């Protein structure tokens, strides 16, 4: 009888919510702590850096594969259009000395900008590939993975930045600066004009930059592990 159920139902819903939410939070916490030794405690910065570096290496590998595949199947004309990558507005160090001279906060910011600038274009690229069946299934999966990785890597680097800020390694001026420029970059319609091949070429290079900058950052901040 509905009469009896009525008082029970909100209680029931509340209980369910509680259980679910707690479980979610536990899961969230567990996902962070899976690699720690005992229990779930403080994750070291070096460990975080290793994770993001590994992640960026994987992302670059996928972009490299897609680029080679594109070059193989869709032979671009010799007369290449000037590769005007939409991220060329973001100033990046193009040498070792420049990369070492730049401040940690700036370097972190550059990484975050780049990652943000590629979020939308890669998503659209994947949609384009899937819709027009330009790639086979394997490649189409790779493009999807690539776009997801950009998204996740950005979050990872953000966490690293937060950690560094927490540890006092870098100042707190990071957040605002990065986001503004990044937004500008992503809003620019230039990336829509790029053809697929150029897009892949540009992203391959940018993912290499990201990986390299992260390594430099790590060896500057936590040099004791594998530098």
């Amino acid at each position, binding site marked *: 009888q509905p009469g009896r159920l009525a008082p029970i139902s909100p209680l029931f819903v509340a209980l369910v919510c509680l259980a679910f939410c707690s479980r979610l939070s536990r899961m969230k916490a567990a996902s962070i702590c899976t690699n720690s030794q005992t229990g779930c405690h403080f994750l070291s910065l070096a460990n975080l850096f290793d994770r993001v570096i590994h992640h960026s290496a994987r992302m670059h590998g996928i972009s490299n594969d897609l680029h080679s595949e594109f070059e193989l199947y869709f032979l671009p004309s010799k007369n290449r259009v000037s590769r*005007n990558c939409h991220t*060329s507005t973001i100033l990046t160090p193009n040498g*070792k000395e420049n*990369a070492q001279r730049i401040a940690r906060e700036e370097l972190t910011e550059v990484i975050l900008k780049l990652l943000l600038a590629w979020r939308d274009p890669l998503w659209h690229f994947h949609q384009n590939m899937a819709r027009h069946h330009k790639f086979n299934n394997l490649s189409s999966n790779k493009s999807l993975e690539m776009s997801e990785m950009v998204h996740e890597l950005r979050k990872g680097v953000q966490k690293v930045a937060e950690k560094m800020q927490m540890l006092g390694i870098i100042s707190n001026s990071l957040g605002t600066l990065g986001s503004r420029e990044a937004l500008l970059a992503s809003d620019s319609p230039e990336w829509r004009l790029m053809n697929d091949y150029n897009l892949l070429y540009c992203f391959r*290079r940018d993912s290499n930059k990201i990986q390299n900058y992260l390594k430099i950052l790590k060896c500057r901040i936590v040099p004791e592990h594998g530098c």
Partner: protein
Amino acid sequence: MMRNVGGVIVLSLLLVFVQLAAGESFSPPGTPKNIICRSPEKETFTCWWEPGSDGGLPTTYALYYRKENSDTVYECPDYKTAGKNSCFFNKNDTSIWVTYNITVVATNALGRAFSDPVEIDVVYIVMPNPPEEVTVTVIEDTNWPFLRVSWEPPEKADTRSGWITLIYELRIKLENEDEWEVHPAGQQKVFNIFSLRPDSTYHVQVRCKPDHGFWSEWSGTTFVKVPDYFPRERSMWILIAVFAAFIILTFTFIWLSYMKIHNLKHYVLPPVPGPKIKGFDKKALKNGKFEDIFSSLVVSDFPPTTSNYEDFIVENLEVFVPEEQELIMEDSKDLQDDSIKSENSTCDNDSGRGSCDSHTLLIDKGGGDKEEALQSDQEGSQDERVPTSPEEVMEEDLLACCDEKNSPDISEKVKFTPSLISPLPRYNLMNQPNPPEIGKKHCLSDSLLNPDSLPSYFTQPPSTKNDFRSNPWECNFNHKQHPLHPQTTGKEHLQVQNEISWVHVDRTEASLGVQAPSVRSTEYVEVQRVSGGNMVLLHPVSAGQENSGTMSHQTEHYSRVKTVNNDSGLLLLQKESTGEEMGICLSEEEVESRATSNGYTASITPTSEKPMVGINSTLPILDDRMASGYVDTATMFGLPTY
């Protein structure tokens, strides 16, 4: 001034003409090709090119490049540092993550040549220097030493700042070998190698590669000597001892079982001695040349003259208890010229073992002329051959003996149960050189038992060549008297060969069996004794002959073998009349009805296809036995006497 200019012009023209006159042709330079650019540390890079033909004229090369998204053309800043036909870009001129568009131009007096442009990004052309400070040490803490290889990244490559990440690879080989063993080492700078060969020298090399780039060259070889070591593990010795003991035990067991089997074999299947018939060629037998074999047994001149008595040596054939492998044959060389000894006793000092008590074969040694009945046939074959006897002799005998047609087809053999001891069973089986002879039925009694007749199985000494039918035991015993008196004083024991189904009599008595076939007389066989086993001892009963000497008991009814039933009985006929020549000859019909396996019979008479009547028996065994001349007393059927 004008003169100078004119002079220069004239000179250059002269030069050109001279060169033209010399036969050379000038042309613009060929295009430079294969532009390769490499960066050792991702901070500088060098490009090399291959010059084309110079066209016979001095040619200069220049490298021009453009950077990405810029139309400004720059020329190579440094042609010297990296050597000939190269261009070196220092740190200031190198930009990472920027595409360079490079072209090389060759110029000579007659023209220019542009190479194909090359686009490079320094990040992807990194080829580091080989790793440095490669050291290899032998660590001998444990019983098994191992190698520890360590190295440093090349000096120029900056791995400390994280600018370059290198992965390493090392390879190792023994000094004498050609094949390297490659070990990827990841990003580590230390590597351990185990499982070394003691007291040997190893070569070690290391190389590296950036995560996106080219492998470096292999480093210089580092030599390391592994000392001689021997692991002293007690457990290993224990293991060795256990294995050795196991192997020894296994071999002992095998040896023992082999020995036992061998002995058992002797107990169970006593080997049969071979025939010992002089003049019998065993090998020829195998070849199937029956004529030759039998011919060798035939006495050439029969009856022999008295003067030749010495030539006939009778051997005693004896059958032993299974241990004996062969018949003990005795060559009684003592020839008694004219005397025929009749032995009163069956036992003879000369007899071999078992002759007295053997139930299978008892041969009376007759004195007097003895022939070599058998020759010991150990292993070899009798090479002596006796020339074929006159065939007509045999023929007569056959005819006389048996009523049946002497057709070659008739080769019935009397079927008797097994165990006839005869050293010459094969003779019966052998093909007669002359079909008619073969066709003779094996008539029992008559010739067989004629003491005067030589048993067919008597072989001739090689010296004498008597006609001796190869089937002497066939019923065609010669009853012709010959100077050599038959001395069947003793009992003659019919030997019925089982398989062969013929009966032959083994007589040790002298009376040269030479002419046994030719003697034609009917003899009666008297059943002397029926042994418990399967043996029927028959002794001949001849009218008018005095066999009394050796006859022990003659109470039985004298009869002769009429027919032999299928493995069941020996049909003995009553003695109807003396002097009648009768033989126990199986009629053809009878014989055919008892045709047995052809395989064996076929071997018997290869030349003629006569249905051979044989008693079913295991052929292989019999063959063996017969081959050696030794037949075991198998089962013998009882003899129904009529």
